[in-house]
């Protein structure tokens, strides 16, 4: 059996390999651009400019970083466990790039559209947690172990709301295959029907990516790099790239499932360039949101973070599935979804605000001018 690729007929294995290679190459470049974009955008949130000197407007900063990292000495702790220390970067890095298989970039262009697209995505992305634990254990460093265990606990806790949010969206679309979900949204994006689901997906994606406010495994101000503290040079850069590639893939999956991907609005009518614009724009919006949250919000402690997932996000994601189920089984109009979605999102916000225990204003005592006091006495 042969498959068409750019007009050539190929063995399906070769075809898949070539497509995957193209995607990986392209994504690596995009990840380097993403690192530059993060530095510039975060800088503007701080009212400063980011990199400026390396190349015009600092565009070559990522290249300079890559050259520096490649040139660094490859350190290895003497008592590091050789196999886990060596293999950890691969366990973190490879599953994320394998996740690019099912992402529908534009209509008709993808690596392989698996029918179990979302299931495959979730299964693959959870392997990288094993990589984090391997990195922490193999480093023979207390900070690394603490970071690794925190990462494992966090990653496992937030898998469930992530999966349930994606599943509730695919319930509506009727399929786990990502391009069918995108085509389902050609008129209305799923975020309108699933506001609660989108919020849960966004928060769980931040936690899976170990980004603020869930970056306590990599708590830069405490354990300084967490599981990756003993890595240097190329090995560390693989972790770094894996983090940004993960952001990219979450952004594309999120925009495909909730924001309409390449299809809303009028994607299928206006052809390929417009679809590319839509896909890139929505992915970019998602990523801008991730940066914005990073610049604004402190990090949660590990027990608060896990409490939030198990005690708050998980029940609400079950609620979302229940609502979807009711609407689908009894054939109710979709507007019910919007109303109940907004109400339950409001309920979730209210519960989140319940973290605040007491009002803000401390007491003030006046320091009266002594001249005034004496005037009153006399």
């Amino acid at each position, binding site marked *: 059996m042969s498959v068409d690729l750019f007009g050539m007929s190929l063995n399906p294995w070769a075809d898949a390999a070539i497509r995957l290679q193209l995607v990986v190459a392209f994504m690596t470049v995009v990840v380097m651009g993403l690192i530059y974009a993060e530095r510039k955008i*975060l800088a503007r*949130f*701080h*009212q*400063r400019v980011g990199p400026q000197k390396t190349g015009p407007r600092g565009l070559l900063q990522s290249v300079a970083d890559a050259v520096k990292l490649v040139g660094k000495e490859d350190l290895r702790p003497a008592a590091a466990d050789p196999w886990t220390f060596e293999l950890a970067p691969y366990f973190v890095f490879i599953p994320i790039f394998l996740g690019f298989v099912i992402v529908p970039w534009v209509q008709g262009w993808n690596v392989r559209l698996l029918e179990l697209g979302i299931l495959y995505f979730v299964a693959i992305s959870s392997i990288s947690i094993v990589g984090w634990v391997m990195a922490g254990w193999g480093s023979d460093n*207390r*900070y690394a172990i*603490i970071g690794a265990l925190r990462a494992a606990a966090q990653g496992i806790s937030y898998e469930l709301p992530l999966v349930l949010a994606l599943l509730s969206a695919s319930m509506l679309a009727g399929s786990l295959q990502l391009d069918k979900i995108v085509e389902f949204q050609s008129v209305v994006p799923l975020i309108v029907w699933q506001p609660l689901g989108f919020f849960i997906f966004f928060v769980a994606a931040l936690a899976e990516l170990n980004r*603020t*406010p869930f*970056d*306590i495994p990599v*708590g*830069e*101000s*405490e354990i*300084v790099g967490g599981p990756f503290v003993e890595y240097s040079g190329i090995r560390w850069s693989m972790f770094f790239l894996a983090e940004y590639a993960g952001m990219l893939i979450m952004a594309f999956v999120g925009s495909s499932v909730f924001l309409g991907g390449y299809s809303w609005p009028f994607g299928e009518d206006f052809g390929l360039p417009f679809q590319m614009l839509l896909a890139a724009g929505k992915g970019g919006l998602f990523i801008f949101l991730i940066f914005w949250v*990073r*610049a*604004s*919000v*402190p*990090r*949660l*402690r*590990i*027990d*608060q973070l896990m*409490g*939030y997932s198990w*005690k708050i996000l998980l029940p609400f994601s079950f609620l979302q599935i229940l609502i979807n189920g009711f609407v689908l089984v009894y054939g109710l109009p979709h507007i019910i979804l919007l109303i109940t979605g907004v109400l339950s999102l409001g309920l979730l916000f209210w519960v*989140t*605000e*319940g*973290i*605040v*225990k*007491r009002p*803000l204003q*401390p*007491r*003030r*005592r*006046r*320091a*009266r*001018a*002594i*001249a*005034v006091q004496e005037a009153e006495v006399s």
Partner: protein
Amino acid sequence: MVEVLSQTSDQSAEFETQDLLLNVGPQHPSTHGVFRMVMTVDGEVVRDVIPYIGYLHRGAEKLCETMDFRQGIGFMDRTEYLAAFNAELSYVMAVEALADLEVPERAQWIRMILCELNRLSSHFMFLGAFGVDTGVFGTPFIYAWREREALIDLFEEVSGDRMMYAYFRPGGIAWDVPVNFVDRVREVLISATQGIDDFDSLLSENEIFLARTQGIGSISAERAIALGMSGPSLRASGVDMDIRRDEPYLKYDQVEWDVITGEHGDVFDRYYCRVMEMRESIKIINQCLEHLAPGPILPEKMPRMLRTPPGEVYLRTEAPRGEYGVYMVSRGGNRPYRCKVRSSCLSNLQALHELTVGEYMADAIVILGSIDIVLSEVDR
């Protein structure tokens, strides 16, 4: 809700576990200087913390014994570099008390303005470092430095240096402020007010920030007094004590402001007391600017080399971090026989053990940030 979120089961009592000895070493991005803590951690809960200090000891007090009263001012700057005007003030006022010098009016008002501006810049530094400790990536830090830059540019125009001013002299100040001082101060106050608003909006109501800081590291008023704490850390526990109001020096008895006290003595109260204190400082500075009038800045007949009669004095002022006192002994002559600095940060740091044991490891850093130490004062 915080209890709901952070309940841990007590099953660890059944398992045989081993406590982890964690060295938060002298080189660490968040210990505010060279400071070392050895924490014994059981899972995530801190069981014991032993602070090690002395990495920044430079013998400032001993050096002051070999310096006359004017040369020693530069060393006092460096014992508390973030609030150098306040450090100079204690020293210089101690010398004036020994030598019985009277400081002219204009010098007093200018000293007061500069000390309050320095309180602002020191509290901005606290906000920046504290925000980073809680985990916001860089934003509070950069806002803090943006505001400090405006303040430090003003200090450079007045004294010539951005951080080590050496501007106060026994008897007054070295030379007069520039002609456009009042306008410059008003400009700086506008930008500082904007900066405080930025911090208030960014942090004070953020639910995650509140979850990280409320209820953590609280200390009761009695224990705080027993440990010798002072400054905003003490006032946050509810103790109404402010040296500016209780033992007025300079012209603090002629301006009106509020003393801020907290209720619970936890990390959030220490943070918020400082934020509100910054607003009060702006009030004080505005009132001082009204009172500024032309006049001399040093007493007439200042000798070239100041000599003090024998005696001793302990003089304390309200530095941004607490009570900064100078105990000076003079045996006649032009240099102190002993100049001891009662460091506010060292006394506040004694509370670290009590505040941290029983809290989570991630909170230990936040608590250390909230006590607001600067190591040069702890070690001198």
